[in-house]
């Protein structure tokens, strides 16, 4: 199913010029649709461009003449946002949590999905449906006890501080657990479609089940792994609620592990008092541009992956 969609053409193929349609018949429609698309594209792009432009301005320029170009580009806004505004730290925190979260989700999720999809054993259906049920339940339902569970894990001797509130690993494991339903659901259907003959041949040749999984099945499932990987990157990058609840510093000595989303929003609230608008816009530009650049580079894979995951 997935290959089918992935292979769908993304660009309209050019065909040799044929008899032109009678003018006027579709001209109006064409003009109208182009106009509407242009309008919507402008509504998406202009605020973003405007934010980037504002990040080069002084505070007074932003407040008094929000529309004009900056008199002189102020690169110090970026330096200030990076160090004083702690955007640099938030960025690093986000990357750490994202790297750990997505990696573990992929490894653990593909293992579970593989076993559930290709082996029959008692309890298989129950475990599978338990994972799928997690898709429909809102995180908000789990929020309060989750806060308490992670807090309690922090009280375990020795490993506690690495698992409790305001710890990277604690948040990473929560991300993994909440990414599992969709990952297992998605990869389950993927592993099911892989041919059985190859697996049997591998086993006859003396490969162990683990080798078979790592050397044969994972490479064959690569398109699916890429799709779900992209899904998880976007999903975990955009997390706001879980870090807000689980990364609260536990004392005034606790280091701030905030991720970008929280850090930026705190900055947005704090700028009401300090009125460092230019720093806020610079921080926002730093947070926004890498993701946009990565997206533009990989847009084909992202769009193919996202649509493969949700169609059919």
């Amino acid at each position, binding site marked *: 199913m997935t290959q*089918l969609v992935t292979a769908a*053409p993304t*660009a*309209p193929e050019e065909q*040799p010029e044929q*008899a*032109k349609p009678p003018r006027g018949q579709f001209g109006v*429609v*064409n003009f109208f*649709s182009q106009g*509407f*698309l242009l309008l*919507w*594209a402008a509504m*998406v*792009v202009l*605020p*973003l461009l*405007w*934010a980037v432009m504002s990040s080069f301005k002084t505070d007074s320029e932003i407040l*008094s003449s929000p*529309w004009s170009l900056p008199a002189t580009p102020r690169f110090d806004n970026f330096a200030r946002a990076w160090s004083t505004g702690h955007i640099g730290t938030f960025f690093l925190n986000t990357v750490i949590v994202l790297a750990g979260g997505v990696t573990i989700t992929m490894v*653990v999720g593909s293992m*579970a999905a593989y*076993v559930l999809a290709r*082996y029959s054993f008692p309890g298989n259906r129950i*475990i599978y449906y338990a*994972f799928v049920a*997690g898709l429909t339940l*809102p995180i*908000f*339902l*789990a*929020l*309060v*006890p989750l*806060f308490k569970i992670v807090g309690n894990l922090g009280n375990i001797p020795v490993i506690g501080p690495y698992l409790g509130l305001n710890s990277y690993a604690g948040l990473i*494991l*929560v991300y*993994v*657990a909440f990414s*599992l339903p969709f990952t297992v659901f998605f990869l389950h259907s993927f592993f099911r479609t892989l041919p059985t003959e190859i697996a049997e041949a591998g086993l006859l040749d003396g490969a162990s089940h683990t080798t078979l999984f790592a050397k044969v099945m994972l490479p064959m499932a690569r398109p699916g792994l890429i799709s779900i990987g992209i899904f998880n990157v976007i999903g975990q*990058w955009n997390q*706001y*609620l879980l870090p807000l609840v689980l990364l609260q510093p536990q004392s005034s000595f606790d280091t701030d592990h905030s991720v*970008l*989303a929280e850090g*930026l*929003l705190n900055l*947005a609230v704090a700028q009401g008092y300090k009125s460092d608008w230019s720093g*806020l816009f610079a921080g*926002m530009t730093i*947070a926004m541009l890498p*993701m*946009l650049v990565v*997206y533009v580079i990989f847009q084909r894979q992202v769009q193919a992956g*996202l*649509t493969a995951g*949700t*169609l059919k």
Partner: protein
Amino acid sequence: MKSRQLPFIAGFLVVPLVLYVIYVVSPFVQTLFYSFTDWGGLTNTQNFIGVGNYVRLFQDDIFLSAVLHNAFLLVLMPVVTILLALFLAFMLNVGGRGDSAGIRGVRGSSVYKVVLFFPQVLSVAIIVVLFQSVFRTDGRGLLNAVLIAVGLVDPNRPVQWFNSPDLVLWCLLAVMVWSGVGFYMVLFSAAMQSIPKEIYEAALLDGATRGPTFFRITLPLLWENISVAWVYLGFIALDGFALVTGLTPDSGGGGPDHASELISNVLYRTAFTQGKFGLACAMGVALTVFSLLLAIVQLRITRRDRIEF
């Protein structure tokens, strides 16, 4: 062979299952339990108070208004987003020139697909900061300035957007639609492209114009995708936490004067500001019942016979 299988299966399942049970299953089950207690959060003692929390929910005006606001978004947001996304996707794939070589999208459709998808990769915090500036309430906000320049708004009385109790929900709706349309446009585009070209060509030969083509061919063949999109959008409309927290006035959002409270925000405040964890858990259960009802109702409404092609 069988004897080698069981340890292997157990080994592959143990880590995901342990994580899932600790962080997902157990909190969900606990929430149900706590919703029947008066747990205050700070203490570890809970008294069982039956359905007391649920009774209090129905007497809580702020919670009830939050339910209404969620219902507002739940009805309008998916409909508007899907209609716009369908329209744009149709433009991109079928809206362009139609000639004897068939129907295709407008010029530059691949560029539009990339650009219109941008909001999807923006973190919600960035969307918040962006729209704080778009909806600035003085005459220099992005939107106010445009409206003043066009002459629709009196420069001395700029629109109060999020500060206006009548407008705040509509502004939230606009932000949600803005950030959602691109994704569903791409989704519907992909679905439209998997419809065989011959069907369109046959319709063209039969003299069908754009309107009938859309309603007789495209829409029925896309029905399944639309119903999935509707359920996804419903979940998004039920959340809205970050947008309300960041964009609407009053501490923690929900203002002005509770005009934009959503269930998620009331829940968060009840738990983490007021420390009424038991009551907050009851709200969580209520929210879940809404989600499940939503999924069931929408899947029932949109259920049709599946069309293979």
